[in-house]
């Protein structure tokens, strides 16, 4: 049997086609937004947002709303809050740690009252891309477009402020606004990404691919592009492996992400003269 026949058989299934479509959208958004997250050294903020999203997602399920809207609502609000509170809080602050624990605690409480659905917890925490339906793909695509449009709108001052904050401020870049808008964008990307790999594994698509890309190339555009391509490849190959082996999809994606990162860690890109 060749790979092609396996692939054709795989794509005969509706749920597999949905999984590839949803993962594709989320991976590209995650790879692009994640590139800036890693560039700015704010990966911890991404982690924090996903945890806070857990409370939102479970809260939404409890009151009968689709979990993604709870995720989006909570993470965007938290992202804006973190941005407004300033640089210090979006970093590795004790306060963030306490808020994270509180958010996960609330998530647990909401799940506790939503007794009918224990699998919901697993799906939220570790993702369940094989259960994605058509309407969710539409939602993901719409959110993805909004996320990327917002990213494009602030990209230039975002790069300037990330690389040289003091100079950017002197040249008139509103630092606080840019960092707040960026965290709101990260929040949207986290919500998308969590639909695929789950809240606990958003790093697999948002940090692994961009960190790998930054080991391999040093250009901004080439880095962004490679990050998106890697995220997409890891998501799709991960799903294919899961189909073949019956291992959980998120495990496969997380493994590929880690493999990519560690294999390229010692890599030095070739340079002009020296």
């Amino acid at each position: 049997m060749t790979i092609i026949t396996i692939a054709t058989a795989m794509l005969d299934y509706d749920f597999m086609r949905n999984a590839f479509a949803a993962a594709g959208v989320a991976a590209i958004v995650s790879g692009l937004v994640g590139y800036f997250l890693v560039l700015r050294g704010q990966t911890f903020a991404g982690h924090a947002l996903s945890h806070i999203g857990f409370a939102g997602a479970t809260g939404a399920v409890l009151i009968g709303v689709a979990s993604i809207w709870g995720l989006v609502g909570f993470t965007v609000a938290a992202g804006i809050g973190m941005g407004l509170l300033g640089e210090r809080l979006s970093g590795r602050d004790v306060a963030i740690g306490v808020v994270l624990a509180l958010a996960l605690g609330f998530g647990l409480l909401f799940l506790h009252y939503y007794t009918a659905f224990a699998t919901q917890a697993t799906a939220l925490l570790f993702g369940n891309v094989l259960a994605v339906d058509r309407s969710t793909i539409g939602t993901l695509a719409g959110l993805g477009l909004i996320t990327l449009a917002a990213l494009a709108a602030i990209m230039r001052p975002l790069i300037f402020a990330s690389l040289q904050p003091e100079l950017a401020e002197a040249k008139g870049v509103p630092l606080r606004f840019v960092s707040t808008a960026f965290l709101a964008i990260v929040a949207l990307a986290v919500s998308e990404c969590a639909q695929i790999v789950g809240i606990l594994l958003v790093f697999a698509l948002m940090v692994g691919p961009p960190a790998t890309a930054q080991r391999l190339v040093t250009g901004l555009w080439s880095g962004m592009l490679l990050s998106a391509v890697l995220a997409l490849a890891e998501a799709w190959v991960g799903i294919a492996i899961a189909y073949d082996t019956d291992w959980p999809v998120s495990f496969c994606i997380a493994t590929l992400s880690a493999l990519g990162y560690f294999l390229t860690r010692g890599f030095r890109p070739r340079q002009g003269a020296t």
Partner: protein
Amino acid sequence: MNVIELDRVTVDIGGRSVLADACLAIKRGEFIGVLGPNGAGKTTLMRTILGLLTPSAGRLRVFGRAPQRGDPQIGYVPQVRTLLPDLRVRGFDFIASSVRGERWGVPSLTLADRTMIEKTLATVGAHDLAARPLADMSGGERQRLLLAQALIGEPQLLLLDEPLISLDYRYQETVIDLVRRFARERNITVLFSAHELNQLIGALDRVLYLGNGHVALGTVAEVVTAPVLSQLYGADIEVVRADGHIFVLSRGRDVERSPHMHDDGHGGHDHGDHDHGGHDHHHHRHGHA
């Protein structure tokens, strides 16, 4: 024409007057060495000229008008450089980020922008840095890159805040010569802050000493004297001239070791912890006595 004019300007930061009633005028094309102990207001003066800080009293004129934030006529090398430790972005893209970096939208460079960046990199001898990631550069190489960036776009005024920090001695001379030549060829005004007067003596037209909220601007012969510096430092200062070098020594209370305040301690603007690359930044020494 005066490029910078301060008329009884007071700048308060965190309840302290970093500049008090300061008056000075700097003419076009002058190379001004800015000196004074840490916390004396060197960075504050530059940030005020950039329009990032507003004087609480007095009148400040830059190019004959109130300072404008983001003025393209000003090239700036900030002192506090928050550089991400593992920045794997190449030198060219790092510099390019500042080209119209304050505008919204997706970044794009015209062919003219690229040529301009390449040309400026060549001017400071940093052509080889274009393709290398920042993380692999030494402190001196990064500094060269930042200097190149300040020169992009035909600035009329250069504000260089401690550009010699983290450079080895040999390259410090090169940077001073480079700035001097670049500025003289184009009749650009330069404010160059430093810790060491002697290095700058050959390059500067006038020297601006700051201390205790006061400023003293004039030739080295006028300003670097025991009475003037004693007043600025608020301590007995002795000035010894020997072999073309000037040593500023303090007796009695040692101003160099007095409790030190950071230049960059402007309120509400947190840069986080930064060490200055292990350089002796906390003691202000002109003399090696």
